[in-house]
């Protein structure tokens, strides 16, 4: 331990204050959904699955379905386009790594509202050719998740000697497809998994682009329902947060507990 680390007591105080800051709105929201006059009840939570409320909640269920499909396509874009490109850059064009990294990190510096201005005419064209399905948003999200996905995959690439592994596999008779699927992908698994989960989290959290391009996803559904039934919207928000929290836990675990880890 170095001299700069705070003492345990200080750490607990800092952790407590920060935790309280985050917990306060969440607990308030939870109490809000449970409150019934002076007491508390789970009736509203049970009511989510009440057929009588189905019409009110329809935008959320539709949005949820769209969001999940959208998340899937976005993950596919990350795994099938970004990851192979990164492998290609690190094996064949290492000189391009710097400019590639700059390009990929660029979306983080551009506000979503600005992005939409550019995306709107493109999505008019996409609407004409591929239809107006919510899944087409994956093209935009594929861009916005680039910086996050890139970071996690690159960390894995840096931890593995890609060149030697691929040359060894090639010398043993493996073609490039086999090299990537049988040798590189399993060893980049923590990074690929983390990138996928982060992409899901981004897709489930993005509102501006979806709203301004008039696509129905979970987040826009929540806003619509919020105007009719504030309780339902609050409950779904809590569930979405719990899901995102679980995802983060899984991401944290993905980096550890690997059979091939700790090579020395």
């Amino acid at each position: 331990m170095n001299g700069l680390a705070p003492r345990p007591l200080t750490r607990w105080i800092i952790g407590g204050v920060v935790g309280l800051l985050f917990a306060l709105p969440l607990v308030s929201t939870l109490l809000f959904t449970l409150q019934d006059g002076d007491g508390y009840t789970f009736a509203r939570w049970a009511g989510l699955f009440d057929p009588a409320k189905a019409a009110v909640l329809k935008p959320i269920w539709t949005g949820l379905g769209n969001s999940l499909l959208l998340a899937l396509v976005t993950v596919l874009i990350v795994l099938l386009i970004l990851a192979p490109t990164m492998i290609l850059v690190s094996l064949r064009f290492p000189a391009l790594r710097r400019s590639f990294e700059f390009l990929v990190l660029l979306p983080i510096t551009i506000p979503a509202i600005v992005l939409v201005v550019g995306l709107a005419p493109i999505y008019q064209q996409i609407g004409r050719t591929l239809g107006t399905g919510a899944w087409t948003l994956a093209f935009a999200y594929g861009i916005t998740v680039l910086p996050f996905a890139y970071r996690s995959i690159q960390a894995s690439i840096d931890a593995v000697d890609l060149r030697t592994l691929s040359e060894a596999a090639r010398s043993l008779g493996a073609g490039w497809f086999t090299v990537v699927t049988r040798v590189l992908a399993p060893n980049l698994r923590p990074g690929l998994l983390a990138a996928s989960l982060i992409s899901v989290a981004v897709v489930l959290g993005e509102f501006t682009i979806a709203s301004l391009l008039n696509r129905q996803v979970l987040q826009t559904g929540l806003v619509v329902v919020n105007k009719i039934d504030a309780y339902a919207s609050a409950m779904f928000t809590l569930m979405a947060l719990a899901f995102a929290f679980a995802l983060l836990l899984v991401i944290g675990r993905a980096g550890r507990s690997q059979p091939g880890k700790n090579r020395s």
Partner: protein
Amino acid sequence: MTSPRALPRTSENLLLAAAGEGSRAEFRGVVKDYGAHRVLHGVDLDVAPGEFVSLLGPSGCGKTTALRVLAGLEQATEGTVHLGGRDVSRVPTNKRDIGMVFQSYSLFPHLRALENTAFGLRRRGVGHAEARRRAGDALDLVGLGHVADRYAHQLSGGQQQRVALARALVTEPRILLLDEPLSALDAKVRAQLRDEIRRIQLRLGITTVFVTHDQEEALAVSDRIAVMDAGRIEQIGTPEDLYLRPATPQVAAFIGLSSLVPAEVVGGMARLWGHALPVQVPASDGPVDVFLRPENLRLVGDDQPGIGAVVHESTFLGSFRRTVLRTDDGYLVRVQHAASEHVDFGDTVRIAVTPAPVAVRPHRSEYDDDLDG
């Protein structure tokens, strides 16, 4: 050398018996450029079936590049490479039927030792059970049958390179390529594995090209050594040839542990400290530098011809001592002598040159007189 076919029928020996005879490997005028920088200047090399040839040279001499061209990991700019009489210059690595062991640890981290070893067999369409059985035999061959279930990070460096060797051999490739496989290991393991590679190679009869910068390694295991310098092969020959009859000063400097001392060639003999020494490569009369190996020099009594010297440093090496001396005319030389001839720092002694042929090079005024070389 024992013939593998005369051995008892153990699983290891069956693997040996199944091994091929080895293929001929040839470089024909191979040139390799990286942009404007030429790293191979027309390399010609013919490796006979079953032969163990080392590419030896300092770092940056092009030896690894030559091996990578043979493996198909680099494309030759000009010239061709042939395996088993066929031009494979345009054949991709995975179709060349080679086995390769790399300098850095190259086991697949996500696979166990046995699965690593079976990888090449599976790529060749060998069934799961059959591949596992043959991989197990190959691990037995390198003495690692008991670690088949371990991952790379559970193996020592030496064990990892052994598994890599088993993995390279199990497919019975036409040629075994070794790219400094021992350089990451500590000295004792290095010597053991070096001898083991040679033992297995002799029994399998597989053609082998071994890249190393360590002359001792190359001298110990090779049928022939190709000494490379600055992208060219300086000399190809048996270890004895290179040691006793170096064709060029570069080879003389690189093989053995030489000290350089200026001398004068008169009538084809090098005159040094009252001796007339035959030169290995004919040299015209004039000033030269003589390569003196530790075993060329001996300590002698005061009445004999030779030169006086002061002990600079003396190292006990078990059966002999190696002593660094500064001669009275000011040159640092190494002498190898019996451990019983004890000398200490500051002692004055007398040394003489044994009348064996010596290597010489044209005299240079400035000295790259590093005694570590």
